[in-house]
Structures are given as structure tokens and as C-alpha cells.
């Protein structure tokens, strides 16, 4: 894989658009290109933010923040993490 091909695959990789076999080939090339590859991938990760920023902000309902902060403060008082999420 040339570095130009690697660049194209990197953009797809950060979006999760490569399938399993392509990901395996990509990872081989990533090792081969080393630091140069890591720097390029880090640059590509900006794409994730770019698409989100292209959307008009959509404000949540005010009670969403109130519920969130109540849970966070409860977690702080208990000295632990919030419960009931994916984490």
C-alpha cells in the first residue's frame, strides 16, 4: 500500500467505514509507516468533529441539564461514578 492509499484508508478508518478485512490490511500498513502514519491518523480524527460542527446546534430541554447535574452531585456525595450509563 502506498502512503497515498494509506491516507485514503485512514479517513475511512476514523469514521469506522472499513470492514474487517480492510481494517487488517490497514493495520499492517499502519505499522509499516510508523510515526508518519500515527500523525496522519491523528489529523484525520478531526473529521469526526467536522461533521458534527456542520450541524446547527439543537439545545436540549432545560430539565435535561438539571437531571444530569443532580446525578453528578449525588455521585460526588457518594464518592463514586454515576450509575446507569454505558460506562
Amino acid at each position, binding site marked *: 500500500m502506498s502512503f497515498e492509499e494509506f491516507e485514503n484508508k485512514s479517513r*475511512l478508518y476514523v469514521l469506522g467505514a472499513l470492514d474487517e478485512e480492510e481494517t487488517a490490511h490497514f493495520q499492517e500498513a499502519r505499522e509499516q509507516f510508523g510515526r508518519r502514519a500515527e500523525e496522519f491518523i491523528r489529523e484525520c480524527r478531526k473529521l469526526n468533529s467536522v461533521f458534527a*460542527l*456542520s*450541524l446547527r446546534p439543537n439545545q*436540549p430541554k432545560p430539565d*435535561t441539564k438539571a437531571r444530569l447535574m443532580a446525578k453528578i452531585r449525588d455521585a460526588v456525595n457518594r464518592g463514586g461514578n454515576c450509575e446507569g*450509563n454505558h460506562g
Partner: protein
Amino acid sequence: MTTENVTPECTDESLMEAIQERKPEALETLYDRYSGILKALIMRIIHNETEADDLLQEIYMEVWNQAHNFSAAKGKPLGWMVTLTRRRSIDRLRKRQAYARVEERLQHETEQQPEAWVHNTTREDILLSDVRQLLYESINTLPRAQKEAIEFAYFQGMSQREIAAHTNIPLGTIKTRLELGLKKISESLKGLKDEF
């Protein structure tokens, strides 16, 4: 950060440090700063207002719980949160097994508004930010077929193969559309500072 107060002027990195130190007001500031953007992303993926607010709350709880895993050396806090939000939203979409319904809705939206990629962005909103202006221009100069391929990949979390199967378009064509589209967008962003 330990001795500093959390203020609306704090950088994202400082806020993440304060969250790592378990300061709720830091999460609150981060919420005020980005909840609108993150909810817009969730909405674009799952298309349900009530569910979007619930998921947004879960994501901020995860930011709180997982803050110790964030490393400024690996990227910006906004990028980290957007990645988390996109992943959780796509997980939710898949759990609902709603591909068919979403597809119908997207198709309807596309028919209603040809510029569906940024259909919830108005010129007025865009002008609020130079960055958003640049993004708007770069995305909207893409050929429609490239935009649609990127839309399936980004907003529905589909692989190239899944997009090809879903749209009944040859895999090679989908690969070309995605690669060209993403390359053009990346190149248009080169002038931007390291903002996200």
C-alpha cells in the same frame, strides 16, 4: 487547575482536568458549551427528540465517569466527546433495528430538501462561525453522490460494504465516492488551526 476556579472562560482542556478532579461545575460548563452541538449530532442519527435528550444525559455521565481515560496528548476534548456521542448514537440506532425506518425518513428529507447533508443548517447560523462557514462550503461543493456516501458512513455508521449492499451500488463505486469526498473535505480544512 486544582487551585483555580472553574469559569466560562476556561479552556476545554482545563475543564477536563477539573472533571478528573471531580468538580461538577466543570462538567456543567462543558455541558453549556457543547450540549447543543452534541444533541444536534444525536438527533441527526436517531431522529427522536425525547430519546436524544436522554442519550445526551447518558453521554455526559459517561464523560464524567470516563474522564480519567481522556488524554490531551491524543486529541482535543471536543473530538473525544463527538466520537463518544457518535458511537453511542449509532449503538442506539442499531439496537432499535431501525435502519428501514430511518432510510425512509432520510429519503423523504432528501426529496424535500436537495441539500440534505446540512439540511438543519441555515445561512444565518453558519455565518456565526468562520469554521462553520468553511465546513458548509466544503461539504456543499461535493457532488451529491459523494455527500450521500459520507452520510451513510458517518451518520449511520455503515461500512463501505454495507453502504454498497444498502444502496445496490457497486462496492468499487462506493469506495471511490467516499475516498474522493473525504479527501476534498480534509484538504479544505488544512488552513484551519488545531481547533478540534
